[in-house]
């Protein structure tokens, strides 16, 4: 259920405020942030905390090794290395910041404009970007130096301009990618000005990649700056890490330690920058771990499962977050049975936990989510996580909500249909092909041979959904989980797909769970219905009795809303703020 409008500002603020905390919660992120903070502090207060004299040369103290008087030793002019390292922090960090700000300002703004408006903006800016990318920066900086003199700040401004295509390309690609997404279209049709759309919807999309890129660029800028100094093109009057590297390099055989300190500073700050960015990215996009969390289901013996059920769920609880105290419980205490050949409708609004329940049964909860209590039984037998994973694509199948995004854009429909047959059902290529053709035919696709060779972007949503249904029933499963199978489709197609599902269910005698917010669908296809609210089942029963005599006020509210305005697909609710999409 894609929300047609962006999250409310309240939600957004809350997420942002917790961002820093989320980064801090990651051990690596916290350390990296601490390192950056340390460097920033040193850059600011450096001149007041130096232990020795960073500037005055001492003939009698040349190239001393680290010792009590000079903790990090002295340089070829007899100056305290630690003091110089501290002083250098400011100019080095400031130089990088200048390059970064210039690059980001130019790259992001042009990227936004070009990506959003396309047309000649795109042509001009992309041309400019490739121009800068192909310019040998060495020649540019050398030429610039003889025009502007040995000024580090201007050199970094110029470098910022040269690297701005990095931001441009990233922003452009991201913006061009989301420009026609539903929610942007929706915002546009709802009359929002371009500036507001860009500011609100598009900037939020590019934020994460830009932050990651920024850390990278900051690192590169620090490195390039060091390189410039190292090559003797920097400002001799400034103390910088690059200049210190140069000193060290000249004396590498006399005092190798000299090289170590500025290197350490350079590496530390670059690593910290990137680390923070990566952590940010993981936090922002909730993908810190791709690994599915281990479920802690109850021991099988606790539950008695009635014989003859195809699917039973008992006291199911699903939560996100590893920390017990802070985890968010999205499904609690859910129990139901589905007999072979029976259709259960799992009904509720966005965020009620119905899709989470479906994912838990399939063992495909997004990263960080896991079953924390209860159990899932298949064919009367309580299953472990591994068993459920094994049954996927065999006795349990899944039909998704959004047909287009559930097909891999890189493979033909034929390839996507036959691959599971060959891998799971061990069919030969010919068998799989024949089987796929038969299935496509069965789900009502007129020209299966042609469709097999098409890519997902070449077919309509309705046809894609039929393909997905064909894929789901390929192994003649006992249990079919359909997550809003008609929601994303045109109204005219919805009925056809429902008809198809009903026919197939009857034909194969499958137990089926339909996750939906739509009582029309329930009325059309379900035998029984379970109404969910805030992660719990509030009412369950035969379709007829629930429709005729809804017991729970929430059920009545839902039914009432449908009667009021049948065309609304999504039921707005003030309680939809827990951030987990159902």
């Amino acid at each position, binding site marked *: 259920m894609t929300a047609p409008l962006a999250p409310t500002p309240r939600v957004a603020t809350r997420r942002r405020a917790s961002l820093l905390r989320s980064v801090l919660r990651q051990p690596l992120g916290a350390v990296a942030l601490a390192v950056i903070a340390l460097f920033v502090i040193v850059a600011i207060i450096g001149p007041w905390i130096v232990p020795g004299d960073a500037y005055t040369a001492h*003939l009698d103290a040349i190239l001393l090794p680290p010792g009590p008087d000079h903790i990090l030793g002295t340089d070829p002019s007899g100056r305290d290395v630690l003091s110089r390292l501290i002083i250098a922090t400011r100019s080095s960090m400031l130089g990088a910041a200048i390059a970064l700000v210039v690059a980001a300002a130019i790259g992001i703004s042009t990227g936004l404009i070009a990506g959003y408006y396309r047309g000649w903006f795109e042509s001009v800016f992309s041309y400019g970007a490739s121009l800068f990318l192909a310019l040998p920066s060495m020649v540019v900086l050398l030429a610039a130096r*003889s025009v502007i003199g040995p000024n580090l700040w201007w050199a970094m401004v110029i470098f910022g301009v040269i690297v701005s295509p990095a931001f441009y390309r990233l922003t452009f690609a991201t913006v061009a990618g989301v420009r026609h997404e539903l929610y942007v279209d929706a915002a546009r049709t709802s009359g929002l000005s371009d500036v507001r759309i860009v500011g609100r919807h598009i900037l939020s999309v590019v934020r994460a990649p830009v932050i990651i890129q920024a850390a990278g660029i900051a690192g590169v800028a620090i490195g390039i700056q060091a390189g410039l100094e190292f090559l003797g*093109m920097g400002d001799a009057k400034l103390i910088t890490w690059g*200049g210190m590297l140069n000193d060290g390099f000249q004396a590498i*055989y006399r005092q190798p330690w000299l090289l170590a300190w500025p290197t350490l500073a350079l590496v530390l700050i670059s690593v910290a920058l990137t680390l923070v960015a990566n952590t940010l990215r993981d936090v922002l996009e909730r993908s810190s771990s791709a690994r599915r969390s281990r479920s802690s289901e109850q021991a099988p013996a606790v539950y008695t499962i009635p014989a003859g059920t195809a699917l039973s769920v008992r006291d199911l609880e699903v939560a996100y977050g590893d920390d017990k105290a802070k985890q968010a419980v999205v499904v609690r205490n859910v129990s139901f049975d589905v007999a072979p050949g029976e259709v259960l409708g799992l009904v509720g609004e966005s965020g009620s936990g119905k899709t989470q329940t479906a994912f838990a049964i399939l063992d495909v909860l997004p990263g960080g989510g896991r079953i924390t209590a209860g159990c899932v039984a298949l064919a009367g037998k309580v299953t472990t996580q591994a068993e459920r994973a094994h049954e996927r694509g065999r006795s349990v199948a899944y039909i998704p909500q959004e047909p287009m995004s559930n097909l891999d854009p890189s493979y033909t429909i034929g390839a996507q249909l036959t691959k599971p047959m060959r891998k799971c059902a061990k069919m030969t290529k010919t068998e799989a092909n024949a089987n796929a053709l038969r299935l496509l035919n069965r789900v009502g696709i007129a020209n299966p041979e042609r469709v097999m060779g098409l890519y997902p972007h070449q077919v309509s949503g309705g046809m894609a959904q039929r393909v997905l249904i064909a894929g789901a029933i390929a192994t003649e499963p006992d249990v079919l989980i359909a997550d809003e199978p008609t929601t994303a489709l045109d109204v005219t197609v919805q009925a056809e797909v429902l008809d198809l599902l009903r026919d197939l269910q009857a034909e194969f005698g499958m137990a089926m769970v339909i996750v939906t917010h739509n009582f029309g669908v329930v009325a059309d296809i379900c035998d029984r219905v379970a109404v969910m609210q805030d992660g719990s089942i509030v009412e369950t029963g035969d379709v007829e009795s629930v429709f005729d005599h809804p017991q729970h006020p929430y059920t009545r509210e839902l039914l009432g809303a449908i009667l009021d305005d049948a065309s609304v697909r999504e039921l707005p609710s003030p309680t939809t703020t827990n951030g987990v999409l159902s």
Partner: protein
Amino acid sequence: MKFSYRATAVTAVGVLALAACSSSDNDPGAEPSSSTASTETGAAMAPLLNLGVVDSPGQGGFVAADMSFATKAPYGQAIYDTLVRATPDNLLEPALASDWGYDSGKTELTLKLRDDVKFTDGTDFNADAAAQNILRFRDGSAENANWLANVSDAVAKDPHTLVITLSAPDPALLLNLSRAAGYQQSPASFDTDTPVGSGPYVLDQAASVVDASYIFDANPDYWASDYQHYDEIAMTVFDDPVSMQNALMGDQLDAALFTGYQGFDQIEGAGYTAHEYAQDWEGLLLFDRTGQLSEPMGDVRVRQSINFAIDKEGLLQGLAGGRGEVTTQVFGKETPGYDAELEYAYPYDPEKAKSLLAEAGYADGFTIDFPTVSFVPQATFDLVGQQLAEVGITANFTDIAPQDYFPTMLGGNVALASFRLEQPATAWETYSLELSQGAPWNSFHTPDDAVAGYGEIIQTGSDADSAAAAAELNKYIVDQAWFNPWYRTITTFYTDAETDVTPQVGNVYPYLWNIVPVTN
């Protein structure tokens, strides 16, 4: 990249250097020495010499008339013969010229040429070719074209007699004919892409990579086989001393001129023998002796004050790791005019420096613009600026782009500069490079009757008069504090166990035929 700048500097130093080479024990105007050379080993040829060089042939390529010398000497010496040959001590020996002599006015030099030499393109070497080569070098773009500046004409009197007429006596002429000015290129190859000589080796153009490595094969018909020791010589260019050190320690070179400031112990530890010789002096050039740019500098007491303010011994230890000798004079140890007494003229004495400044009316010190450049180690400026500051002279450092440093120094745009100059082996070269009114390193072209008077005696006087005048000149320059030399630096040439070398007095790179295989 920094390193290649340094290489540039070395080249330039070399340029001066070459101006500097000369004979000390031998009057360059004299008859050919009868002593036969030191390098006649007569040993069998060794197969291959891997030679490390510090720069490529440069803008002149391999065109004899445009070639440089100094650090680039091996390139020319591989493919060209010179009219005369200098021993490592700069005694002159016959080469393409078997005999020579001046007229009484020292303005006409007659050379008898060998009649049995052919260029490697098969054409004959003769006086006509020699005359053309002399004039081409004088008029060419070689950085040392001024070596033949006094040549007014060169003609072939007969096929084997060359007569060079001079506009004024030139004490260094014959010595210069043993260097690049004496290279003899086949006239048939003057306007082609492949210059041809008569020398011991032939450039293998196909196997060479311009600016990186040059391969030379032995000339099978070479007329002076005593000066040819290898079947093949591979010269590899290292414009960065750290890379050269790596190559040495990786045992990739048999012999190399090393221009680095560090790593000496490691290279010797890797089995190389160091051959060390004092070649350059390092210090401040106090250009503005008339106070045009910086008024205080026009006062001799201020210039002397600078000399007292600098701790030379400290700089030698701090900047050169003690590899060198403290000095006060621009005349080299081997140069006529050198005076050991003068070495102690300006001991480190900041108090004296301050009182001299006060005497000159600068009790509160003064500020002076001081150019810095990336190829001179930053520590130099740090330390010198520090020592000047201690006596009240504030150095206002301005960084100059490397490619602008020479024009800045030589164009009279700075009152002083820190640099390293070669110590010419003859007084005449020292005079005409650093002291005469027209000398390039006298960049404000300070006129000085005393200096000019000594110069004239050096140019035209007898050996004894010349040497006496040189000594007077040297003392005068030190008294007047035209310069602030700190120390003579050590140049190091490395050879491996299978190779030996005899360094050349007055040239930074040993002459090619003096790099020989060790015969056991």
